[in-house]
């Protein structure tokens, strides 16, 4: 993509802003974000840590799916967890604690124990990705404990139909077909989007049975329709569907297993913005989404269904927001809404409903053109657990044109998930049982009445206590520096999560297997420093980079050390047993201490060619408690840790004619692999052709 096009893009962006955004001052050409305050705000003026990824960066990087572009950002780590579920972390907190939104409304998570698979989100039609790090429950409620990722879709600006068609093919026959078209006709603006993505899959470890990723294909369709009734009233309707088909190929006791899974996700989002007058506007929002998944696995011999999984989750959420601009320096936001959440799935005795109502408010105050306060709070009432109050305050102090200080402190929460309250699952192969907390006592009694319980390990009284929401108190503070060539930011963060929900044994079955339920147990802490910079030393060259230092641990294990509890390990060769020190405790699973990225974007204007080279480093992290002492420690064997590694991605884009772009690129250019546990996909090469009209 050429610089020319960029300039046009930015220019159009500005036009767009002046057209309907009068809420906050937009002083310059600078990018704005909406996620941090629910009002348009200049990125650089915000008192919170926010990462913004532009369309240009996505295109020049050749990213197709959300995980690819996010993992190149500082402090965002995407990697499978111990069970192999796709995961992600922000400030060391997993995707369970991060709310993923499209245009401000939440996506459903599916079946993978709270994880969100970022690969299911195509990035071909988006304007920008906004990542707010740190507690965001004050605006977004449950699940936004660690942060919010908001995908902002593109809005067409051309009076004639404009768009692009692209085709990409690469290693593993990974194919991507993408179609975009949009136009503004008088009062109506529309954009249509279609994407097909498929792969023949791959295998990371040939020694084990089965393959890592089996062949799949998925389809995304999107449509957005904006209608301006008059100068003051505008309605936006967005529809999106995502359908995925994947083969299942595995084995069980040397019997091959085959099957297939299908999942379908769709959402409908309707938003009406009513500008009452210069000072006051309201937004009326209706949102509905549904996720359905089916999985069928047959043993080959007799085609008997071994594992069948049905999953049906629906969510409906009406919300009304109001913005009142009291003066140039003071803006109030008020929101009120309700969520109706429905889940029916295998291993639930009946379909379950969650209902919640909420109200939130925020004051955004600027004093003396130097100090910006944002004070916000939200109250959630829920049908199944205690009400939650989530306050947050942030402040930015502008020292001069170059330097500013920032700080924020907030409380956030994550409500217990459906499965943690209502799951009723007995593994037919092994015979253990997992019961959601709300049904645990009744089901345990029923099992007992059928003489299936050998003994109970918890009192009825204790089991009757309801599960509490996981809560956090988090703190961010730092400073920013910017001049015409350099932008830099340093942020210290600390998240303390209490009432973490985990499984525990509530009894033993007569088959000697355990019955599990969920309880609030430990508290964890993640703490660290994030540094980011962007340097434009010469025209057409952009160098950016980032570093995250992360400390992470289970508070109760540190307390155990302090209280004199001993943990033991074995020396590598002599296998002598000894007491380990507090410093030998490695912390939480699947977290690296260091995370670095360096990105170089260069535009060779004469040749209409742009280059990008991105490198990500992740230091050693632990996956297993190898020596069985109950904690991850430095004496866990080599097999317990994944060694640090560096991955380099490169892309070259040639703008051939006005209408044609050709791109070649490689992910993991140097074919880095990791031993003994390899989670890294080897070198992949792709070519892409884009026709713009």
């Amino acid at each position: 993509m050429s610089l020319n096009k960029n300039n046009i893009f930015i220019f159009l962006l500005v036009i767009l802003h002046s057209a309907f955004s009068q809420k906050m001052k937009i002083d310059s050409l600078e990018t704005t974000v909406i996620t941090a305050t629910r009002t348009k705000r200049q990125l650089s003026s915000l008192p919170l840590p926010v990462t913004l990824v532009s369309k240009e960066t996505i295109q020049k990087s050749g990213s197709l799916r959300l995980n690819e572009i996010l993992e190149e950002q500082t402090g965002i780590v995407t990697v499978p967890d111990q069970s192999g579920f796709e995961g992600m972390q922000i400030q060391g907190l997993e995707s369970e604690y991060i709310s993923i939104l499209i245009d401000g409304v939440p996506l459903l998570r599916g079946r993978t124990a709270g994880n969100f698979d970022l690969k299911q989100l195509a990035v071909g039609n988006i304007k920008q990705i906004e990542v707010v790090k740190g507690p965001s429950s004050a605006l977004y409620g449950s699940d936004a404990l660690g942060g919010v990722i908001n995908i902002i879709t593109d809005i067409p600006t051309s009076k004639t139909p404009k768009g692009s068609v692209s085709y990409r093919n690469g290693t593993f026959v990974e194919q991507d077909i993408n179609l975009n078209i949009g136009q503004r006709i008088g009062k109506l603006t529309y954009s249509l989007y279609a994407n097909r993505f498929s792969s023949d899959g791959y295998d990371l470890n040939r020694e084990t049975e089965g393959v890592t990723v089996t062949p799949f294909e998925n389809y995304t369709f999107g449509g957005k329709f904006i209608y301006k009734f008059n100068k003051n009233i505008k309605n936006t309707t967005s529809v999106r569907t995502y359908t995925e088909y994947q083969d299942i190929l595995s084995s069980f006791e040397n019997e091959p297993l085959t099957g297939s899974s299908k999942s379908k996700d769709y959402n409908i989002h309707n938003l009406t913005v009513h500008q009452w007058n210069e000072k006051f506007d309201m937004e009326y929002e209706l949102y509905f989404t549904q996720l359905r998944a089916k999985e069928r696995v047959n043993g080959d011999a007799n085609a008997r269904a071994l594992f069948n999984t049905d999953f049906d989750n629906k969510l409906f959420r009406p919300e009304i927001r109001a913005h009142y601009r009291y003066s140039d320096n003071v803006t109030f936001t008020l929101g009120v809404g309700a969520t109706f959440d429905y889940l029916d799935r295998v291993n639930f005795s009946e379909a379950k409903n969650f209902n919640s109502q909420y109200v939130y408010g925020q004051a955004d105050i600027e004093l003396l053109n130097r100090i910006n306060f944002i004070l916000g709070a939200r109250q959630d009432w829920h049908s199944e657990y205690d009400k939650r109050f989530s306050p947050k305050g942030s402040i930015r102090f502008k020292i001069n044109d170059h330097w500013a200080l920032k700080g924020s402190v907030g409380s956030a929460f994550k409500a217990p998930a459906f499965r943690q309250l209502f799951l009723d699952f007995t593994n037919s192969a092994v015979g253990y049982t997992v019961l959601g907390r709300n049904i645990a006592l009744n089901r345990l009694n029923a099992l007992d009445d059928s003489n299936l319980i050998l003994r109970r390990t918890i009192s009825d009284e204790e089991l009757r206590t309801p599960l509490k929401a996981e809560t956090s108190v988090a703190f961010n503070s730092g400073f920013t520096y910017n001049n015409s060539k350099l932008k830099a930011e340093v942020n210290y963060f600390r998240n303390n999560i209490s009432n973490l929900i985990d499984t525990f044994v509530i009894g033993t079955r007569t088959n000697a297997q355990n019955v599990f339920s969920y309880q609030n147990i430990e508290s964890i802490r993640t703490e660290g420093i994030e540094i980011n910079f962007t340097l434009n030393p010469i025209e057409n060259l952009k160098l950016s980079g980032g570093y995250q230092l992360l400390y992470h641990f289970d508070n109760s294990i540190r307390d155990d050390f302090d209280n004199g509890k001993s943990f033991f390990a074995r020396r590598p060769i002599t296998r002598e047993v000894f007491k380990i020190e507090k410093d030998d405790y490695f912390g939480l699973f699947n977290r690296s201490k260091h995370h670095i990225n360096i990105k170089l974007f260069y535009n060779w204007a004469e040749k209409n060619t742009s280059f990008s080279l991105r490198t990500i480093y992740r230091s050693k992290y632990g996956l297993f408690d190898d020596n069985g002492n109950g904690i991850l420690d430095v004496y866990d064997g080599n097999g317990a840790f994944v060694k640090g590694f560096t991955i380099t991605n490169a892309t070259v884009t040639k703008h051939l004619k006005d209408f044609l772009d050709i791109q070649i690129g490689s992910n993991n250019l140097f074919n880095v692999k990791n031993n003994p546990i390899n989670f890294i996909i080897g070198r992949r090469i792709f070519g892409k052709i884009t026709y713009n009209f």
Partner: protein
Amino acid sequence: MKKTNFLIYLLCLSTLGIVSCSDDDNTDISPNNTSTDTQGNTDREEKDDNKEDESKEVTLEVVEFKNLPATVATEAERDQMGQITKPETGAYTKFDFETGKITTDENDWDIAFRTTAIIVNGGENTGTTDEPDRTKEGAIGLTDGLFDEITAVKDVKLKQDSKENGFALTQRSGQGWYSYDFRTNVIGPIPGKILIVKTSEGNYAKVEILSYYKDNPSEITDDDKNNGVRYYTFKYSGIKK
């Protein structure tokens, strides 16, 4: 796909003995079969020479006992779903701390081994196949610590086997003396886990399991997993009450 893997992993967790030792050769566990018996250290052999006099005490020396077989006669059978249709069979290998030897005596034994299960001569049969009858008032407990630093039973809770509560020393991975690594199929003693045994004669011993594989190899090879599994190496010593 992922989910399936996870379920298989959970299955592995619960079927440890089987997963890791499919090629077992059902070794004869007669104590007279000297090839499987111990080559204890010299200290111990000296003691053995006049053990007749001291057989009522557990030696205060630290004794390492090698290659106690804990094999089965027939493996458990499972259906396609992995559920046990026929349990494993085979005699438990009984051990007597006062003599420091494997024994077949029906009364004078303290603990007995079969696969990862360790039973004690106290309480009642738990209901597994081929269990020896409990004829004495022995008991067993588990504590955390360094072997050398434990000199007395103190407040370690000792329990007896029972029909209702099963083994006094749990056979579960990660909760008793060992942990099972589902990636490598290796059963390893958990560091810092010390068994405290009240013997059938009323003495007390501390026991640390060192290995579950023949000749206590430092790296467990595929050959160890296939041919050398279910051989305990442990050290023990008498302690005060």
